[in-house]
């Protein structure tokens, strides 16, 4: 009854899920203007239908290797946090699945620290584990000081 929709994404071969309620749209991130001095996970800013959207690289945020530049063009999921528009850039947006949060398994203890804070839990699906991401923490957590690129 209390099933929720999750948008499933693929990043670096792993399957991730985002609460569908926070996802506004899915788009191809194009014409990105890089932002000098920004944290490394910020790819840049772009214009999406008159809005300025900040593109955040999911791979960088999850401390994965950068994408193979010859791979298929990345996609982005549009999110709105605190009045700002963000695009989370992922390898692929797959589908929407209905899952019951009751089945959400807390993240295992041995999860790398960088993941633990942004992962509320995982679902066990027939095709493998679906790692649920906390969109707000994923985007804003761990950033906020720009020193890294300066």
């Amino acid at each position: 009854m209390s099933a929720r929709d999750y948008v499933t994404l693929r990043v670096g071969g792993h399957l991730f899920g985002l609460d569908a309620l926070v996802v506004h749209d899915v788009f191809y991130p194009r014409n990105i203007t890089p932002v000098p001095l920004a944290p490394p996970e910020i790819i840049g800013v772009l214009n999406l239908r008159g809005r300025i959207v900040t593109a955040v690289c999911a791979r960088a945020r999850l401390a994965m290797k950068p994408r193979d530049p010859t791979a298929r063009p990345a996609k982005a999921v549009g999110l709105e946090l605190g009045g700002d528009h963000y695009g989370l850039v992922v390898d692929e947006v797959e589908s929407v699945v209905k899952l019951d949060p009751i089945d959400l398994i807390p993240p295992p203890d041995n999860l790398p620290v960088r993941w633990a804070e942004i992962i509320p839990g995982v679902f066990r699906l027939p095709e493998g584990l679906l790692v649920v991401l906390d969109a707000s923490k994923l985007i804003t957590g761990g950033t906020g000081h720009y020193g890294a690129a300066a």
Partner: protein
Amino acid sequence: MDDLIADFLVEAHEGLEVIDVELVRFEARPEDRAALDKIFRLVHTLKGACGFLGLGRLEAIAHAGETLLGRFRDGRLQVSSQAVTAVLSAIDRIKMILDGLGDLGREPEGDDTALIRALEAFSDGAAPSEQSAVAAEPEPLAADVAAPERTLRPGEVSLEELEAAFLAAEGPVFGAPAPPVETPAAASPAAAFEPDQTDSAPEAPVSESLGPQTIRVGVDVLEDMMTLVSELVLTRNQLLQLNRGRGDETFTPPLQRLSSITGELQDSVMKTRMQPIGQAWKKLPRLVRDLSGELGKPIELVMEGEATELDRQVLEQIRDPLTHMVRNSADHGLEGPEARRAAGKPEAGLIHLSAYHEGGAIVIRLRDDGRGLDTARIREKAIEKGIVGRAEAETMTEAQVHRLIFAPGFSTAVVVTNVSGRGVGMDVVRSNIEQIGGQIELQSTLGQGCVVTVKIPLTLAIVSALIIRAAGERFAVPQASVQELVKVSADSDHRFEEIEHVRMLRLREQLIPLIDLSEELGRERRHEAKFVLIMRVGAHRFGVLVEEVIDTEEIVVKPLASVLRTIPVFSGATLLGDGSVVLIIDPNGLSDRAGDMPARAQKAIDEAAVWTEAEAAELVSLLIVRVGAGALKAVELSRITRLEQAPVTTIQRIGDRAAVDYRGKLMPVLTIEDGQRFMESGSQPLLVVQGMLYAMGLAVDQIVDVVGAKLDIELTASRPGVRGVALINGRATELLDLDHFMLLALAEHAKGATGGDADGRIAA
């Protein structure tokens, strides 16, 4: 209840602002019934609302104030400054309680007895006998009907039929406990206020322009509208650009229509953000009145052009600077009454504030007829505070000196008063105004006063910007902060120089520190830098190297997402006509980012300047001589009368004393060092020093050189005859003390006069 209180707070604050202004006006012109009526009405409404909301403290104060005002109104009490002060302090207390109410949701604790007693004393003072009589019955009965809270206070009866009229008006007020405070009488939608007019009948055509019918709209709604319209404008720009590339006329007519409608819509929405500048001036009459009392200077404040409109965001930003400027004028600018009389001026100082539109900007002018700026004192003060060097200050024009009052940390007040002179003065004003892209100028005539002119853009939402390129990317730079654009190339006249590893641009004989925008952004420069933007932020003037200047464009400033807001170099982003996003450079951030650079560069410049100016003045010609095997010796060339090569044979010696015939007189010859020997043969080099009455010759081994050098004595003398050791051309050189030798020579002369001649040997 919370909503009611919130509404009440908004209304009450607005009402109180009006009361402040009107009271001061009323004090100046007690015959102004319209002002008094307005004040009375507002206080009365406030009291009514307080009673309804059960705010006992507020009600009691408002009541006491109203009673006093009532006395003014029915002519039973003469208007006096003290009485007005009492009412103003009541208003202040009400404001304080309202602030508490806003914070706590209920009235803060406190005791107002003293205040109320003071107000009552004024009311009583005028008509003590009546007061008791007035405590009579009829009125409270009438009050009972409409305003039950008033039965609690039997002291207010003097209001007679006026009161009755108001009470009639109170019905609707209770229905909507937030009475339309600022729209009284004629303009008011509340017809119930009509009865007021009968009271103020002679002044019926309300003299203040209260504006047309208005509705209250939340500021956030207006902000949203502004955002949406900005987006619409950008979308329109994109469409127009797309259509231009199509070579097909189908869409052109509707697009043109869309374009013009969008433009009009933008104008309308901009208008909703516009507010008369009088909003920012509201507190000034009260401020000036208080200052006048505090400083013991009668001051007249004249305001002109209150209706001039500007963006409310800009309005907020200039409120404080304006207040500060007025304070400054009152405190520093205007003289005391005696000084004014002595100068043949009217006793009351004048502060004249005016505003008008000029181009896309609003000009605010503050003029006072005070003493004007004291150039000499500012110069001294600036030198004392280390803002400018003395040499520099001496060469500055009067206008340049006046501008020094905008320098950080400058304050001329001899005595730090309660009002101003805390050293956070005009520099803060200037930086506030420059932050919103404004300019501030100052003109002063000694003895006649000072005019400060502030020019600010009408709006901050749309900004003129230069689109430039650095590190291969485009960026927008607000045009207001760019003073000048300088094209540079290999063969251009503008030279780059490097001092202490700081790059400089020499522009019209001024050295301006340079930063490379690409480098500041942590990127590589992709192309040769072709332009330098000369920017000014506060007192810093610096050049920014960019690769290319592409265009100028009116841009709509959009904030960056929170994760990017910590980057100080950018103030926002904008969409260009082609739909791409460019980042807006924040000149302040850039100057901060290049933070230590301008200071470092300034130091280098200063040092360079010292060398050329001050140093040149101190440069002394020194004669370098060799005596014995020790360090070289130096004497100031100017003190040497002549260099003489005396044949050894002409030197006469008596024991350890020696003399030579010099122009027909016997001149003592002194040695410089102990055990110094004269030349064996040939000629002996002598430095001839001519004193007032006598001459002497100093024997040296060799004359080495004449150099121009700084007289900078490093070590003090260790023995007589040597002033110290100076580094001259990189060599330690002993500077001879000629005065010491002159004294020795004098002794020789004395000996010569007595012993010498008698001896008959020196006088050959």
